[in-house]
């Protein structure tokens, strides 16, 4: 089996930078970075990348805005937001013929976008780690939580599970945490159903993930909606033949009562979708709540809550974008 020697991280935001900073220091690994901005590539080439926080590292990298400058690679880690996958893949089309592409986007379905641009083997993945990008050349490692990877369920034979185990080992050796699954869907869907409800309801109500998401004492408590929406998601997963690894409603109650990974503090996590809405940028709802709507259609299961929340969040996006007709 091919040994992983050259890696390219596409998109050096917080998550991408954490992967670059950790994997890049491993002996025998050449780390390359495909950036969007020339100045970002230039700074990375001149200064390397620094990681602080949970790790203390500095690594040299080869960065460019053009894939042809980076040479052949064995592994591409696509670390952009879902909303930027298409644009990134347009740039990768026709390059890196011998690579495998590993995904870590939120939600479900970005693999289909990748496949439109080439026939590379694809590893599906999702990550729980988090960091704060301090500058183009400095990232702070915050939450040392895992990245889960596995075969893409549509093409489970490709690239082969042993290669996925090799990627798992590489990430773990670098100081980050990874776990490979032969079937990723049970963990992927548990998180998806959880995220779909908590993110979409939060985006529409302007609520961070606060305790009322788990309140069901009164008829007017928000928890009823969260619970019903998650139950709908669970039924869709079941119809898709997926056995969940955890109950999303329990994940929700646990997060708001035990404070998630921020034990002690008053838990009020601002979800990524709420953060996007507050900054008036397009959300990932197409890949999160929208992917559950599409999965429901495939199996003919009704999804009124997901459909409604999906459309409401799209409506919220229009509430600012419709004022800028020049945008489209």
């Amino acid at each position, binding site marked *: 089996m091919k040994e992983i020697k050259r890696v390219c991280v596409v998109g050096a935001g917080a998550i991408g930078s954490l992967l670059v900073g950790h994997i890049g220091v491993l002996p025998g690994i050449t780390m390359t970075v495909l950036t969007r901005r020339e100045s970002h590539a230039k700074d990375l080439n001149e200064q390397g990348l620094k990681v602080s926080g949970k790790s203390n590292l500095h690594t040299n990298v080869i960065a460019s805005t053009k894939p042809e400058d980076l040479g052949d690679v064995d592994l591409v880690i696509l670390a952009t937001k879902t909303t930027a996958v298409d644009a990134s893949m347009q740039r990768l089309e026709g390059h890196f013929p011998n690579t495998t592409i590993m995904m870590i986007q939120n939600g479900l379905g970005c693999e289909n976008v990748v496949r439109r641009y080439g026939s590379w083997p694809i590893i599906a993945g999702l990550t729980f780690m988090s960091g704060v990008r301090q500058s183009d050349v400095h990232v702070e490692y915050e939450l040392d939580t895992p990245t889960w990877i596995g075969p893409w369920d549509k093409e489970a034979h490709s690239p082969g599970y042993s290669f996925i185990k090799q990627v798992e080992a590489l990430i773990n050796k670098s100081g980050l945490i990874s776990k490979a699954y032969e079937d990723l869907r049970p963990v992927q869907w548990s998180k998806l159903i959880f995220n779909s409800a908590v993110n979409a309801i939060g985006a529409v*109500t302007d609520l961070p993930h606060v305790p009322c998401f788990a309140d069901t004492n009164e008829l*007017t*408590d928000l928890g009823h909606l969260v619970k*019903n929406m998650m139950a709908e998601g669970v039924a869709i997963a079941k119809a898709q033949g997926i056995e969940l690894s955890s109950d999303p409603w329990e994940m929700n109650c646990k997060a708001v009562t035990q404070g998630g990974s921020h034990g002690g503090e008053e838990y009020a996590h601002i979800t990524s979708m709420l953060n996007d809405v507050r900054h008036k940028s397009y959300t990932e709802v197409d890949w999160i709540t929208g992917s559950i709507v599409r999965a429901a259609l495939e199996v003919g299961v009704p999804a009124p*809550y997901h459909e409604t929340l999906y459309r*409401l969040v*799209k*409506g919220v996006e*229009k509430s600012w974008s419709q004022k800028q007709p020049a945008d489209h």
Partner: protein
Amino acid sequence: MKVCIIGCGAIGSLFAAHLGKLDDVEVWAYDPYQAHVDAINENGLRLTGETDLVSKINARSNAQDIPPCDFGIIAAKTLHTRSAMEAVAHIFKDGAVCSVQNGVGSEEIIAEYVPRVIQGTTFPAGHITGPGVCNHDTIGVTTIGPFAAKPASQEESDRLAQALTRSGMETTSLADPRGSMWTKVIFNCASNGVGSLTRLPHGIACDQVRSVMSAVAQEGIAVAEALGITLEKNPEDMIDYGREVAYRHKPSMLQDVEAQRPTEVDSLNGGLADIGDEIGIPCPLNRAIALMIKGIEHSWTL
């Protein structure tokens, strides 16, 4: 005829100022907003916009200062129905009170305080531009009729409608006013509920999330059908008509959300879902919308 307007905000002011023009009607208004009350008593109640008039009426912030009246017209926000009725009940020991408020559930509360109730639905719109001044934004009709559970007589309802029509507020009195009320309630659940969550004006919401508005309206239509109510119009047509005539109009509940004021959702989507639960016609989407608008209100406290 003595009439007391209960809650002299925009809608209450339109009714009060018009009725004030009639020689045979003595108009009183109860409102807690002292500056508004003082301005009305000093300079009269002024309407601008679609109507241009100044009307001499008697405004009071203390309901004890208001004499017994034949009719009440309550136009308070539904959140304040109970506290307003508690304050004015003594005025209507032998009177009939007509609600022109939004949503469902007000008449039941009013019926706890007065002997006879009239159910009403009104379409004109306006907004208070300063103490004693209300802009009449849009002209619209009002439909009233005896509230079945504690009815005023048909004669009373007709008499109030005639006075309102003479004053320039076109009003129809029907034996069964529910069809008109439910048509507006269902329309409002769709337009206000979806608009408040997406922050979209009515017409743009129609372009972007019409299917959600329809799904919300259909739940209401099913409830009305189960209650044996013949709707005055198809709420779906009203939604489309609203898109034509009020494309950029922000529904009142969206205005409340933007100003971080408590909304009337308990009388709209929440009230509809409660009635649906009672009669076994679940309204999951209206319930979901009600819970999320409550969620928005909760977000202001964080």
